[in-house]
């Protein structure tokens, strides 16, 4: 089912289109430069601007007499310190204000993440379609946009409601934030108009700008849509990171820096990167569930083939984005520790430490589901039998590592239990509870997940290059060395040296994993160039495999909720850490059980809204048949 079309004709015209794109960008930059220049001059007259240079007269002639210039009265900008609200300054609405904001913020974030991510990979898929001339990619990209379109409105609705709730429930805090971020709020609101413009022209112009030069214009619209979306995200991130690690203000919260200094706090870029990658994984997982649902709902082989391929692509996107996510997480945590060791330990070793057991369960679920889907998908190709013997070993490693990861370090024990155990920690299992063991487990899980992915990608191909055996041997060697390195570093530096080396060694472990992933991609892409392709049957996959595509978004959604809980909780009893204290009735860190219940509420709410979004997407393409009676009447007439 290949649709070769006249995309090729578009390719011959790409140069003028590229020039048009560049001109568009240049125009944008010029406009912003002009605006900047106007701001710099502050709208002064020429005379005012040259005034500071001094008096000017013709050389050799006496200086003209001028009126002394009256000193311009300068008005110093007022300075505001962070407010110190007392308990009575927080409105009481009868239910927990934090719970209200929690639900609204989380829903806004879920949908925000989805609608930021989908256009990103849609643009890439569209570009792939353009470069390969395979119209299936174009159709799939369009379908992805269609199913997420309502999400933009839902995001805006929850965003508006969240803002309203914050202003009503936390007036002092919001007043302070408005002062700190000032005009940035107006820019933020303005970007929504831009994003909406690009969104609607991009989506509704899809078929109108499908070929030739217009396709490049369409891709440019997609790029601008993503540019606006990304800018919105990083601006919103700066509020969250300001609350965690304020910058541009002094110790009493008075603004001492400009807006850029306020925004570029130590955690801003780590959060930007982490959310950017996580959004893609999350978006891929959600649209994968749509494909799985459509796959299960139809018996039509052609449709099943289409939705199987769509589900596979979604899983591919989610998994590819998920693999580097822990490394972005490492960077974020390292920056948190560098900013405040106390904050880092509150998250990782203090009251919130138990949360990471739940995180292990969630990430374990994600990895097991993604691997299972890949293994099940191998049944599509006849060449997969060459690699199926490896699956049981991969599964074994995944399960063992998962169990190590969920092994807690400290247990709440009664005296008799301590006596039975021979101490507060189990003799053999105790060492598995600390981070070095978990670092080994996580890295091995990532390595074998990449192996599953690599085997799947190889299943329908036979390498034809002469150096294939050498390439395979090299890959095996890289896997073996990396796995041994991860285990050695974890054990030696984790158990036989002090904490400083323990943390440092985790970087080398991550590097080993990255080497496997990067070298695997490079070697395979070279080795399978011009490879013989084996038959592949889309749609030939067990129904039960589709449930893995439901497990992924559920686990991702829950995980995002959990990470939101820890990110917010590390601020402890501060609205803005060290600057503005939280004196509301909810200024404590709730228990993990309470947080779990809240996260479940928002996950179920999200599930319901996503179903609504999918339903709306399909409603647009359905048409009511002409009623029988009316049709009969027309026939009589």
């Amino acid at each position, binding site marked *: 089912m290949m649709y070769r079309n006249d995309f090729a004709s578009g390719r011959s015209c790409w140069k003028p289109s590229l020039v048009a794109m560049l001109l568009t960008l240049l125009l944008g930059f010029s406009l912003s430069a002009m605006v900047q220049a106007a701001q710099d001059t502050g709208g002064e007259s020429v005379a005012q601007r040259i005034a500071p240079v001094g008096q000017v007269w013709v050389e050799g002639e006496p200086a003209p007499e001028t009126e002394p210039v009256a000193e311009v009265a300068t008005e110093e900008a007022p300075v505001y310190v962070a407010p110190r609200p007392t308990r009575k300054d927080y409105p009481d609405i009868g239910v927990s204000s934090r719970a209200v904001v929690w639900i609204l913020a989380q829903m806004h974030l879920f949908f925000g993440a989805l609608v930021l991510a989908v256009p990103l990979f849609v643009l890439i898929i569209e570009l792939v379609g353009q470069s390969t001339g395979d119209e299936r990619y174009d159709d799939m990209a369009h379908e992805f946009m269609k199913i997420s379109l309502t999400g933009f409105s839902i995001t805006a609705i929850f965003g508006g409601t969240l803002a309203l709730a914050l202003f009503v429930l936390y007036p002092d805090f919001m007043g302070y934030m408005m002062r700190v971020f000032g005009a940035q709020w107006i820019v933020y609101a303005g970007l929504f108009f831009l994003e909406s413009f690009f969104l609607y022209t991009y989506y509704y112009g899809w078929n109108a700008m499908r070929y030739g030069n217009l396709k490049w214009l369409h891709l440019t619209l997609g790029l601008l849509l993503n540019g606006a979306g990304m800018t919105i995200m990083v601006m919103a991130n700066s509020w969250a990171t300001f609350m965690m690690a304020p910058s541009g203000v002094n110790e009493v919260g008075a603004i001492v820096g400009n807006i850029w200094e306020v925004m570029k706090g130590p955690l801003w870029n780590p959060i930007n990167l982490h959310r950017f990658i996580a959004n893609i994984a999350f978006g891929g997982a959600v649209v994968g569930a749509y494909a799985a649902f459509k796959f299960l709902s139809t018996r039509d082989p052609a449709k099943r083939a289409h939705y199987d391929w769509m589900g596979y692509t979604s899983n591919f996107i989610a998994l590819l984005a998920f693999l580097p996510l822990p490394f972005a997480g490492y960077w974020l945590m390292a920056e948190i520790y560098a900013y405040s060791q106390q904050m880092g*330990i509150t998250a990782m070793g203090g009251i919130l430490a138990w949360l990471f057991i739940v995180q292990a369960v969630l990430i374990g679920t994600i990895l097991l589901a993604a691997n299972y889907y890949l293994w099940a998908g191998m049944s599509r190709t006849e060449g997969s039998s060459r690699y199926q013997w490896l699956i049981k070993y991969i599964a074994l490693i995944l399960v063992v590592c998962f169990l190590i990861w969920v092994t807690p370090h400290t247990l709440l024990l009664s005296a008799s239990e301590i006596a039975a155990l021979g101490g507060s920690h189990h003799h053999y299992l105790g060492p598995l509870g600390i981070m070095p063991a978990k670092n080994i487990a996580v890295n091995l899980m990532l390595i074998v997940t990449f192996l599953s992915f690599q085997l799947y990608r190889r299943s329908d191909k036979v390498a034809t290059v002469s150096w294939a055996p050498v390439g395979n041997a090299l890959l095996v060697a890289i896997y073996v060395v990396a796995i041994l390195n991860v285990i050695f570093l974890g054990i030696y530096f984790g158990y036989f040296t002090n904490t400083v080396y323990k943390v440092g060694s985790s970087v080398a472990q991550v590097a080993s994993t990255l080497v496997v992933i990067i070298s695997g991609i490079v070697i395979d892409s070279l080795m399978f160039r011009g490879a013989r392709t084996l038959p592949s049957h889309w749609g030939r996959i067990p129904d039960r495999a589709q449930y893995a595509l439901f497990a992924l978004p559920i686990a991702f959604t829950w995980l995002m909720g959990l990470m939101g809980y820890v990110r917010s909780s590390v601020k402890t009893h501060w609205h803005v850490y060290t600057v503005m204290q939280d004196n509301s009735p909810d200024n404590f860190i709730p228990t993990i059980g309470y947080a779990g219940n809240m996260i479940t509420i928002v996950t*179920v709410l999200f599930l319901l809204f996503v179903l609504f979004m999918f339903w709306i997407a399909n409603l647009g393409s359905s048409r009511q048949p002409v009623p029988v009676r009316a049709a009969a009447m027309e026939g009589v007439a």
Partner: protein
Amino acid sequence: MSVLIKTVGFSLGLTLVFTGVANMLPQVEGDAPVDVKVDLSALTMDDFVAMGEDLFNNKGTCTLCHKPAPLGRAPDVQGTNMVAITTERLADERYQGKATDAASYILESMLEPSAYVVAGWGKKGSDDAESPMPAVDKAPIQLSDIEVDAIIAYLQAKDGNEVTVVLPSPDAAAEVAKSDAAPGGAGAAPAPAASGEEAVAKYTCTACHALDNDDTLVGPGLGHVGARLNEGEIRQSIIDPNAVIAEGFPAAMPGDFAEKMTVRELEMIVKLLAEKKQ
């Protein structure tokens, strides 16, 4: 419909599994520190030491980092006799502080942690010149002077050493509470300043005002305050700061300097500021 029921059922079931795991774990709530009223007239040294231990483990958040090896990210203070080790640390050539005995060393290590960093525990890349520890009298910990003294008492007492910090009396506590004391004054009434500069430092005026120029910090710069205000007006702006507030500034200046300052200190500050005319 059956597909919808099956998939939604599966999704809800999985969600409940995660919820179950979260509820199976130990449930701990992280309370914000609350102000506790202590009857100082009935306080014994044992109570004071117990108070220090509680602060060390809770509000002070010391045990987040100060744990036994290999779990700690800072030296194991509870497992070390801090009094015994003081001599060794003060004799270390890397020691930069001013402490002379165990109590002043422990105090200094809490208020100025970088004065001496135990080898191997400095900030990454600082070659043990900078400590990752926050000053305990500043945000986010914000221990009071009495609380700091209680921790010193605990660290001295836990290994059977003599407790040398003075038990806070109600009078001293009131004085300390009023002074919102600067570092170094823990537990004792601050001595009167000897000069205008000293008085300015004692009452930390420079936290909010630039003295040598007109730059705005939290309050207006005082570089030329003498040209704007006469001595009477300066005096009034210190003892009753909210009577006249410089335009555009918040009413953020403490209003209790009249109770805190001695007459001599007030006059020295007024004189110092009135001379700032050029």
